[in-house]
């Protein structure tokens, strides 16, 4: 992948303690912000990005040149209106768009690669909270996140309950299921099986594990879509040909699409970051974090001190983080006495629905921010 361009960056004044017991020093958090911060700092919204997302939420991606990943939601006059709100989105630690991660320089002057400590969702949020401290924002108007971003929003609400007035969690979960972990493991094994991976030490070499990373992305991408959506978009249609080739070219449109998604992804993402961030997601189990003894964790305990208003949204065709996971969180919040709203929206596009055009989602988001 290309070297990440320079975003705004905040150097943490202190070492960042991690759940694994180590600490990261000289941590940089790259971020973008949109809209003016009110003098009383009451209008700040933190948006947490998903696995392969980044801080370029409403401005063009510097590597691909594509529009920001949530431009339809964030901007002047959009549901998250930057005429009213100061919107912050930071690249999580472990990622590769300017925040400290495996491709950053380690203590020996060389990239960390696999010497980077294994991080957790809570570690990512610890980094985000340190950024908010640096920006002088004590209390967010709202923390918003979809998918892995939703895990961060939940982690913030549970671990730093005073830092957000509202918590908006879209298409997310409070724990990774066996199926979630299984798909991530396929991706990681694809990367590590690529000879160019070289035990993660590929930064100084000519080769990088693009093939493995592309396969990882292809497998993951399937989980972001629905069968209905795939059938509608591709069916069994052939790609630029009138008959099957009796070979292993991308005969089908769906194969061509996945290959394109896979190779495009390698332009903008680092394979080691993919390993670390998927690991963090697999380790995520918010109830377990609050368990007094292993296995005893009740999710409601995680929200015992919560004073925020919560809103959860799921999509009926999302089989990656299905509605049942959101309901599980809602029940825990109810049991903890927290103020919570929940709605399951109907959308044909599976998990990715949260990124796509959806009028009802817009209304819920806009309404919840009022």
């Amino acid at each position, binding site marked *: 992948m290309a070297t990440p361009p320079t975003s705004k960056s905040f150097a943490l004044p202190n070492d960042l303690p991690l759940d694994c017991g180590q600490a990261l020093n000289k941590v940089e958090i790259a971020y973008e912000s949109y809209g003016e911060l009110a003098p009383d700092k009451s209008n700040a919204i933190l948006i947490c990005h998903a696995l392969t997302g980044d801080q370029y939420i409403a401005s063009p991606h510097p590597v691909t040149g594509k529009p920001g990943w949530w431009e339809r939601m964030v901007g002047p006059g959009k549901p998250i209106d930057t005429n009213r709100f100061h919107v912050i989105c930071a690249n999580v630690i472990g990622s590769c768009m300017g925040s400290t991660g495996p491709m950053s320089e380690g203590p020996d002057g060389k990239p960390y690669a696999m010497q980077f400590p294994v991080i957790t969702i809570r570690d990512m949020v610890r980094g985000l909270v340190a950024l908010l401290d640096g920006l002088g924002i004590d209390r967010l108007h709202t923390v918003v996140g979809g998918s892995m971003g939703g895990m961060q929003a939940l982690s913030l609400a549970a671990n730093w309950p005073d830092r957000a007035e509202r918590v908006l969690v879209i298409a997310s979960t409070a724990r990774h299921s066996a199926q979630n972990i299984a798909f991530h493991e396929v991706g990681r094994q694809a990367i590590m099986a690529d000879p160019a991976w070289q035990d993660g030490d590929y930064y100084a070499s000519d080769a990088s594990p693009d093939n493995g990373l592309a396969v990882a992305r292809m497998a993951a991408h399937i989980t972001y879509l629905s069968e209905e959506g795939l059938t509608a978009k591709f069916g069994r249609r052939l790609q630029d040909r009138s008959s099957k080739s009796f070979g292993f070219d991308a005969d089908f449109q769906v194969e061509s699409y996945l290959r394109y998604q896979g190779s495009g992804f390698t332009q903008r993402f680092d394979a080691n970051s993919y390993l670390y961030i998927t690991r963090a997601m697999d380790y995520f189990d918010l109830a377990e974090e609050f368990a007094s003894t292993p296995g005893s964790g009740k999710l409601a305990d995680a929200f015992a001190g919560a004073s925020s208003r919560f809103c959860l949204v799921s999509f009926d065709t999302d089989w990656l983080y299905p509605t049942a996971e959101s309901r599980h969180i809602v029940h825990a919040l109810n*049991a903890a006495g927290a*103020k919570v709203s*929940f*709605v*399951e929206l109907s959308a044909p596009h599976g998990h990715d629905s949260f990124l796509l055009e959806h009028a*009802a989602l817009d209304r819920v988001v806009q309404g919840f921010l009022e």
Partner: protein
Amino acid sequence: MTLRPDLAAIAAHVAKGSRVLDIGCGDGALMAELESTLGVDARGLELNPAQVERCVGRGLSVVQGDADRDLANYPDKAFDYAILSQTLQTAERPDRMLDELLRVGTKAFVSFPNFAHWRTRAALMFGGRMPVTSALPLSWYETQNIHHVTIDDFRELARAKGARIERGWFFANEKQIGAPAANWRAEFAVFELSR
């Protein structure tokens, strides 16, 4: 804003600052009224996602869900009042619903259309057809009201369940009427219960 008369009767008897669960809260009209005028901590449960959306837009805390299933997820006595307006007759098992109301709430308000109103009786007696009235506007095949109930039936259910009827209010033509012969005269009834 003007509340439906049964909701107004409920709103007039909810204590200030109490915790309320409104089951089948619709567009949240009662919740909004309770929050703004009485400082009530109101939560809602509503089946229809479009209604939930509306509630979220009003700043209310409403969960999309099915009262038949999802009440089980609320802790015992989590609320001072559980409110079930115009929903009892749609429940899979109204008897179990009543138990759940008095489990999650210290008190319960229940409102329902009275199937023994004289107009309903007349439609059945003289027309020989399932009644379609202003209180029960849908035909038998499309109505959600799968368990029609009369005021006397409800009193009997409460007695059988060991629930105490604290108060009752009766309505006809959008106006409150007296208790005498309510099972004939009332189109709607509201009861406050405890156990």
